[in-house]
């Protein structure tokens, strides 16, 4: 493939390095890449069904699907340790699943049911998972970037000041290309550089913030790493349409950030195949452009590579797809069966930790209670 040229001049996706993509993730058994294929297929199927459920009015509010970007969440999170914090924006279902959340809690959250990961109080844009160290799902563009700095500040403080050891954890903070233009992002980068925080800012650069192409939204759109360089933060561009490539590039970066306890920035080139949200006719970008990018589907790519190597055959693939369909269907059934929150019980719950006045204190959601013994500790 070559550099993609489109009528609006979106050249942010560069498929000019096919050799890179052709190799499977280095140093890992094929079973791991097979798992990534499954993880990506699960996210895809989950999102397809999410869109249907939205059409069927099972899901309300704003809802943004991750279709096209699956390799980013799966490949980056694969480079983490379990205890490394992750925080992201509102296009967050993929991150929740990649971090290990059972799809049923994610679906039930969108259905607005008590079984949801946040008891139906957060919705599509606000997924949280204490056990899997997912600190949200944040609906305000850029708001999660100072939080990411703070999670990194916090892990470093716990590891060094409180536990007297060395800084052990790395925070991944995802953001969209639109968030590059928020003040909070720039403040967070400056603070991260200044305080040597072990955080990696991953811009999921899909070329658009709603209908605004990156060229119309930010300066230096062709080289956004310059922004990080301005804060003295190491940076790199990664082709985010190839999960093995994402992992291969992320692993050494994560290791380096862990080792040096200093921040990094990634311009992760990707593309969202669907509209911005459920109500987007996508008039701002040409169909030809979409078609070009769709040929770079990260799932198709890995599937073909694995088939080509004989790591999986058609039958096994079909079985896998069937299993995933069942899993997502079950998640919908589970969500459907989970009761709606009871205003008399739930409305005034979880506002304050301390019970007082009309407020009844707080408790963990069903998701946490069902994973007994792994409630996730502070620190």
């Amino acid at each position: 493939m070559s550099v993609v040229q489109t009528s609006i001049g979106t050249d942010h996706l560069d498929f000019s390095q096919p050799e890179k993509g052709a190799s499977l993730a280095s140093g890992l058994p094929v079973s791991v890449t097979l798992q990534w294929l499954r993880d990506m297929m699960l996210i895809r199927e989950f999102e397809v069904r999410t869109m249907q459920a939205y059409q069927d009015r099972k899901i309300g509010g704003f809802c943004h699907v991750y279709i096209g970007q699956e390799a980013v969440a799966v490949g980056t999170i694969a480079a983490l340790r379990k205890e490394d914090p992750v925080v992201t924006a509102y296009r967050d279902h993929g991150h929740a699943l990649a971090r290990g959340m059972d799809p049923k809690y994610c679906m039930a959250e969108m259905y607005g049911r008590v079984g949801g990961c946040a008891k139906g109080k957060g919705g599509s844009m606000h997924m949280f998972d204490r056990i899997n160290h997912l600190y949200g799902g944040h609906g305000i563009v850029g708001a999660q970037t100072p939080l990411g700095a703070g999670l990194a500040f916090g892990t470093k403080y716990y590891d060094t000041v409180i536990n007297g050891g060395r800084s052990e954890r790395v925070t991944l903070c995802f953001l969209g290309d639109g968030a590059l233009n928020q003040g909070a992002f720039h403040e967070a980068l400056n603070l991260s550089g200044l305080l040597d925080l072990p955080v990696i800012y991953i811009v999921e650069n899909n070329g658009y913030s709603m209908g605004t192409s990156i060229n119309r939204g930010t300066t230096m759109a062709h080289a956004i790493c310059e922004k990080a360089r301005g804060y003295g933060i190491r940076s790199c561009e990664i082709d985010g349409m190839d999960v093995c490539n994402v992992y291969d590039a992320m692993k050494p970066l994560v290791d380096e950030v862990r080792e040096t306890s200093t921040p990094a920035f990634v311009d992760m080139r990707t593309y969202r195949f669907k509209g911005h949200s459920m109500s987007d006719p996508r008039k701002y970008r040409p169909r030809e452009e979409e078609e070009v990018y769709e040929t770079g589907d990260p799932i198709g790519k890995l599937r073909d590579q694995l088939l080509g190597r004989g790591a999986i055959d058609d039958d096994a693939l079909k079985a896998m797809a069937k299993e995933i369909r069942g899993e997502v269907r079950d998640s919908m059934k589970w969500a459907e069966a989970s009761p709606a929150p009871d205003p008399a019980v739930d409305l005034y719950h979880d506002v304050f930790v301390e019970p007082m006045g009309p407020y009844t204190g707080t408790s963990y959601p069903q998701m946490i209670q069902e994973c007994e013994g792994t409630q996730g500790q502070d620190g």
Partner: protein
Amino acid sequence: MTRTIEFRDALNEAMSEEMRRDKRVFLLGEEVAEYDGAYKVSRGMLKEFGPDRIVDTPISESGFSGMAIGAAMLGLRPIVEFMSWSFSLVAADPILNNAPKMLYMSGGQFGCPIVIRGNDGAGGQLGSTHSWCVEGLYSNVPGLKMAIPAFPADAKGLLKTAIRDDDPVFFLESERLLAYKDEVPEEEYLIPFGRALVRREGTDCTLVSFGRPVHFCLEAAEELAKEGISCEVIDGRTIRPLDLDTIVESVRKTNYCVVVDQSWSFGSPGSEIAAQVHAACFDDLDNAVGRVHSADVPTPYATELEHEYLPNARRICEAVRATTYNA
């Protein structure tokens, strides 16, 4: 045993004591460390606790308050110092959208045990941009607690409680009171939230206030006593939670009430308290609740204007006379 110390040192003692007992507590903000605090509240703390725990930040209120909230989600107990609450406006998103809502939005998974503190209110001829009384803005938001001490002993006891609290606390100080000296107990103590204090007993009219205007109320009560009007002055100490019971008990005795609040009148703690007193004491009141607020204009610079703008003793006296039919 007590000794007499400044308001700022009471705050300093509260933070230092809590930092000694809990390593999760740290202080961050502009000029808190090397400069010893823009208003010297944190003086000496860098020396005792070092730069890991007394953290100087650049002028990035949105960035560093958001950062503190991220650390609090992880279980740390940050104290964020705003040089002035006026500067919190550029941090509105993290402090209003994140801190007070994280627990709810995460379905009980991530709380936010943070204290945000700094100078609030007018009085220093700083003009409109630097004179915000944020209790008017922020008390509207569920999920946060708000403390607003008027005396050094309360400042210390309430701040220690705030630091130990599992929920976010907005702690409102007054630059005009930082040098105010008063007795503070020697021994360790905490003051619970939601307990108002009767600062002066009286029989004819209840004055309800919080923060710096409590001093204006005491001044007014002194003045009115000369005219034979005996005022009971209630220092609310926390706005959220609000101790309505103490107010109601007093109003049942005096049958008159004047609320004194330094924020603007429209949609304010003062209007909320008046509404609650009307509802709770409908049959006890011999007149509608009177209200004294800052004038409904941007905060002026000139001394004469600013003095008249604030709920000063003269305006309080007038309101009490009018409310008690003594005008």
